[in-house]
């Protein structure tokens, strides 16, 4: 009823390109941002540490995978490997570069660039190999990176247990915390940093989608030969997609290790995580940035909600094995059902709902 295009006229090109064209959208987006920045940090530490920050981390990785798989059509099973590069990169930058030169946000972005370069190296075969054959390259990346950090203890500062806790001094931000009198290691501060990075990179991804580069990616996805005939450099587009995608994954890995769990641990970057992120992407919808976030929220929250339901309604009838197995079954059913009924995933469902609401009370 309030959501109507009536009276909304586009009078210049700038207005035509707006992400939120309608006043209603703008207001909702603004309220959403205020909510994210002002209300969410004041909620409980538990809510931030167990729900919000991990979703931000894996959601960012999903956006990264989306750029590679959803936008450019290059299948990847190495997401966790690239996240691993990001996490170890951030750790080593913080550890080895003098404190006055390095701060966590800078380290996050720089390790993202490392991860991007690693991605380009493993993306090189994509110039020659196509389709499913490319799986072997990304799997090689996954296993090689994992083995590499496992074998060379230098990267973990010779920590024999294989897990290093992150020192409090890494959250120093050039003394900003002392200056403001805020505990920068606390979850609200961590959350805000993750949020700023995620919103910034999502905005960049959204614009990438609508730019010339993004359209090149899509034409490579749809028909690479036709793209090359039209004068698009296919190798360049593929490598760029690998770089950007792995940059996102790297930053996501840094956020996961530094802002969520607070230690650098190889075990969380095994191949299973690559699959989880692929589920998030498929369920959320390929090629849609907001879909990636919806998918990440669903896949991350489902086991938690399911455990909660088990605890409260069935008096703790579900042990962890049951939760894990049922979650896997539900993901599988969702993936298959969505592919059959709505290949666009949650993003397309959301778009349909919006359209229905706009037409309401008329069906068409």
């Amino acid at each position: 009823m309030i959501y109507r295009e009536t009276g909304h006229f586009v009078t210049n090109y700038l207005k035509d390109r707006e992400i939120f064209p309608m006043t209603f959208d703008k207001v909702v987006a603004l309220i959403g941002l205020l909510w994210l920045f002002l209300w969410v940090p004041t909620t409980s530490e538990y809510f931030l540490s167990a729900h919000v920050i991990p979703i931000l981390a894996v959601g960012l990785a999903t956006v990264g995978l989306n750029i590679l798989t959803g936008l450019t059509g290059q299948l990847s099973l190495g997401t966790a490997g690239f996240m691993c590069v990001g996490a170890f990169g951030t750790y080593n930058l913080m550890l080895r570069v003098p404190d006055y030169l390095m701060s966590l946000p800078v380290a996050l972005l720089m390790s993202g660039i490392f991860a991007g370069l690693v991605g380009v190296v493993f993306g090189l075969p994509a110039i020659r190999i196509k389709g499913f054959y490319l799986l072997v390259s990304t799997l090689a990346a996954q296993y090689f990176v994992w083995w590499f950090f496992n074998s060379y203890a230098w990267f973990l500062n010779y920590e024999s247990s294989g897990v290093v806790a992150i020192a409090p001094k890494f959250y120093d931000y050039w003394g900003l915390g002392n200056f403001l009198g805020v505990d920068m290691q606390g979850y609200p501060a961590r959350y805000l940093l993750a949020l700023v990075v995620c919103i910034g990179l999502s905005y960049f991804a959204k614009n990438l989608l609508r730019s010339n580069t993004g359209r090149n990616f899509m034409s490579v996805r749809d028909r690479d030969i036709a793209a090359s005939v039209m004068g698009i450099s296919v190798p360049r587009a593929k490598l760029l997609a690998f770089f950007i995608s792995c940059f996102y994954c790297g930053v996501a890995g840094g956020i996961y290790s530094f802002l969520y769990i607070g230690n650098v641990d190889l075990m969380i970057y095994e191949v299973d995580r690559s699959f989880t992120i692929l589920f998030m992407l498929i369920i959320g919808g390929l090629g849609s940035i907001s879909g990636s976030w919806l998918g990440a929220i669903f896949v991350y929250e489902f086991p938690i909600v399911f455990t909660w339901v088990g605890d409260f309604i069935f008096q703790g009838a579900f042990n962890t094995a049951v939760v894990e197995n049922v979650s896997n079954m539900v993901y599988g059913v969702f993936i298959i059902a969505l592919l059959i009924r709505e290949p666009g995933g949650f993003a397309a469902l959301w778009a349909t709902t919006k359209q229905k609401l706009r037409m309401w009370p008329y069906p068409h």
Partner: protein
Amino acid sequence: MDWVYLIEVLVGGLLSGVMYSLVAIGFVLIYKSSGIFNFAQGTMLLFASLTFVKMTENGIGFWTALFIAAGIMVIFGVATERFVIRPLANQNLLALFMATVGLATFQEGFSQFIWDSDVHGLQMNKFLDIGLLDPNPIFMSDHIPWLDILIPQFDIFASLVAGLMIVVLAFFFQKTKTGLSLRAVSDDHMAAMAVGIPLQTVWAVVWAVTGIIALVSGLLWAERVSVSFTLIEAVMKALPVILIGGLTSIPGAIVGGLVIGVGEKLGEIYLADVFGGQGIELWFAYFMALMFLVVRPQGMFGEKLIERV
């Protein structure tokens, strides 16, 4: 160089390559006939062997359990065709691949949900009184005087089973009417439909056959590594095998398996020092496949792709 040791390594590699080939054949069969890259192959192995193990643990005899498990796999295969593949017919290959990823996830949860997530041992020699299933390796020098090497007996048994399965499959494909229609479908869907081959029945048959292959290879793998989650990871190892061999070729799956098996063992022994760390077999197979594919993108026996706009 120690030649006897080298031969032992080579034989060991070839035999473990056979294990990879077993899994790879299931992949190739489905890809050949429907163009689907079936990621659920690994969980099919897990499901089949878990079903079998749970039945034998509950006192059902070996052959009965084998028969029932095969029946369940056939039902599962037909159901997969009916509820997953058929509604997705004519979708692009990426969507179909993702559907099998979904199927794999579902099956992983489902098989561990109805049975359990414990690690089960499978001692086939409890049921089958074959000398070859003796866990002790045999000395070839007892049989062939000049060959002084040690071979695990079980691997020989696995190779024999694999060989038998390949012969049966070849017979099924070349000599039966169903096999003929399978080959026709893999050649050209539309043409096969035009001459009256029921496409959906053929696909159901393929998925059922793949289920049975999964059971056989699952049992052999399970005897080696135990019935548990690790079976799924064993299948990740089969990926480079089929990609080296070419996705559409059964001989390719076998040769690819042998190449990867031998290459991996040789790499572990002769290249581990170069890389200054142990455990390079984790990724070495993928690198071999990668190097190979960069030179020959369609794999060893794969069909050369001719692309037109």
